[in-house]
C-alpha cells in the first residue's frame, strides 16, 4: 500500500508542478490547434477532409506533448538533484519510473482529445471506432512517454533533451504514415517506418477514424506493446547503469 502512496504522490506532484502549469496547458491546446489548422489549409479540401487529418493530428499531438515534457522534466530534476530524492525512496525503480511517466501519459492523452473535441463541431464522428481509437491513443501516449524517458536517460542537459527529442520526432512526422502514406515513401525509407512505434499507432487511428489500415489491428497493437515494453526496459537498464553507478 505504501508504494502506491508514493506512486500517487509522485504523479500528483508532477501534474501540479509541471503539467497543469498555464504554459503547458496552453501548449496542449495551441499545438494541436496549429497542426490541425496547418494541415487543413494545406490539404485544400473542405470540412469533409477533417476526418482524414485527425489520425495524424492526434498522433502528432501526443508525440510532441509527451516526449518533450517527460524528457525535459526528468532532465531538469536530474540536473538540480531533486531526482536523487526519488531514487532514495524505498520503492522499486520500475514503480518510480511508471509514476514519473504516468503524468506525461495523461498529458499526452489529454492533448490527443483536443483536436477530436474541435472536430466534433465540424464533422460527423458517429462512425469512428472508439474501441480502437481510445486504446491506441493510450498506447501511443505510453510509447511516446517511454521514448521521452529513453531520451532523458541519454542526455544530461535540458537543452540536449529538447534537441535529442527532435532527432526522433521530426522524422517520425514523415516516416510514420501520419499525413503521407508509407507506401508512397521511397523503398529505402520504408523499413525505417516499421522500426518506429508511431507507425503502428497511426495505423490503428487511420482504421479507427477512416476504416482503412495498412496492417491488421491486432498486429498494430502487438507491435505497440512490444515497443512500450522494449523502450521501458532499455530505459530502466540505462538508469541502473548511468544513474546508480
Amino acid at each position, binding site marked *: 500500500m505504501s508504494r502506491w502512496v508514493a506512486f500517487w*504522490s509522485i504523479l500528483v*506532484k508532477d501534474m501540479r508542478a509541471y503539467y497543469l502549469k498555464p504554459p503547458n496547458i496552453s501548449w496542449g491546446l495551441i499545438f494541436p490547434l496549429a497542426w490541425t489548422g496547418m494541415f487543413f489549409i494545406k490539404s485544400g479540401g473542405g470540412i469533409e477532409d477533417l476526418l482524414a487529418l485527425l489520425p495524424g493530428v492526434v498522433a502528432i499531438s501526443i508525440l510532441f506533448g509527451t516526449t518533450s515534457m517527460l524528457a525535459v522534466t526528468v532532465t531538469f530534476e536530474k540536473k*538540480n*538533484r531533486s531526482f536523487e*530524492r526519488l531514487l*532514495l525512496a*524505498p520503492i522499486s525503480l520500475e514503480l518510480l519510473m511508471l509514476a514519473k511517466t504516468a503524468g506525461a501519459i495523461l498529458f499526452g492523452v489529454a492533448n490527443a482529445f483536443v483536436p477530436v473535441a474541435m472536430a466534433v463541431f465540424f464533422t460527423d464522428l458517429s462512425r469512428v471506432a472508439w474501441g480502437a481509437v481510445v486504446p491506441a491513443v493510450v498506447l501511443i501516449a505510453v510509447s511516446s512517454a517511454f521514448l521521452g524517458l529513453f531520451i532523458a536517460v541519454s542526455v544530461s542537459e535540458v537543452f540536449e533533451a529538447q534537441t535529442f527529442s527532435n532527432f526522433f520526432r521530426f522524422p517520425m512526422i514523415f516516416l510514420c504514415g501520419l499525413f503521407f502514406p508509407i507506401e508512397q515513401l521511397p523503398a529505402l525509407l520504408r523499413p525505417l517506418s516499421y522500426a518506429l512505434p508511431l507507425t503502428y499507432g497511426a495505423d490503428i487511428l487511420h482504421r479507427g477514424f477512416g476504416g482503412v489500415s495498412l496492417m491488421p489491428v491486432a498486429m498494430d497493437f502487438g507491435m505497440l506493446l512490444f515497443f512500450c515494453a522494449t523502450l521501458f526496459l532499455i530505459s530502466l537498464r540505462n538508469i541502473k547503469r548511468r544513474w546508480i553507478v
Partner: protein
Amino acid sequence: MKNATPVIEACNLVKRFGDITAVDSVTFNVLEGELFGFLGPNGAGKTTTINMLTGLARPDAGTIRIAGIDCSKAPKAAQHLLGVVPDESNLYPELSGFDNLCFCGALYGLRKQERQARALELLEQFGLADAADRKFAGYSRGMKRKLTIAAGIIHSPRILFLDEPTTGIDVVSARQIRQLIADLNAGGTTVFLTTHYIEEAERLCRRIAFIVRGRLVRIDTVDSLMRQTDGRHVVRFAMADGAGGLCEAISGAFPHLQCQTVSKESILVESREPVRIGPLVRFIEERGAEVSEARKLRPSLEDVFVSITGIAAAAMKQEQEKRKAGGGV
C-alpha cells in the same frame, strides 16, 4: 547509545571511476544510536561512500550491511530505514515548504493525515512555521538547509545521513542545526555526519573516521584522538604591526620551540614543555614588534586532523566554501 550493535557495516568498500579509485578498501562500523563523523578533504571519497551506503551508487567490491540487511547487491533493500540529507538543498523549488515535506513523507509511504501532522510538527520544530506556505525557491539558504534536514527526517528514519549540513549558512542557523542534530541523536537516531568543520565534528560526534584520497587513515573516538594532543602546549601571539620574519628569529633563539606564521599578524608557538610567555613577549618587542595579544590555546581536533592527514584544516574549509560559493557539487 541504546546498545552496541553495528547498524552500518561497510567492509572493504571499493569504488572506481575509470582509472581513479575514489574509495579504496574502506571498512568501518557505525553503532546503533551513535553520532559518527566522517571527515576528509574534497575529493576524499566522503560523498561516494555515502552514495554507496544509501543506494545511490553500487560498490565495485566489498559489502554493505544496514541494520543487518545485505545491501551490496540490493541497494534499495534498506532504504526505508534511511534518511538522507544531501550536501545541496535539493527540494522542489516550485512547491511550498509544507508541500515539500508532505511529498517527502509520501515517498516513504506516510498516509495523508500522518504526513501533514508530521510536516506541521517539523516546520514548528525547525522555526519555519511562518514560511510553511512560501515556495521553497524563495527561502534563504539557512531556511533551505533546515527544510532539507526536516525532509530527511519526516519519516523518522532509524539512520540519518547528513552530508555537510551546515556548509554555507549563517552562524545562527548553523548553531540551530547542530542543536537539532544533537537532539535527534539524543532521541535515538543513528547519525552519519560528514563535515569539513572539524570543530563541529569534535563537538557533536563520539567517533570519527578520517578519509584521505579514498582511504581511511584513522578511526577512533574523539576522546582517544584528543589524547594524541596531550602534552602539547600552544601559544598564539598577535602583533598589531605584523609578524614578518619573527618565526625565524624565535626558532633561532629558542631551539626547543616550534614556530609557524598563521597570518600576517599572528604566529603560533608550540612545544612539548610549557611555553613561558614573558621571555617571548620581551624577545618579540625587542625586535620592534608590539604584542597585542598572547593566548594559550587548547589543542583541538583540528591539530589531530592535520597531524594525521597532513592537510591544513583551514585550507580544506576554504576550498569547500569556495566550491559552494561557485555552485559546484
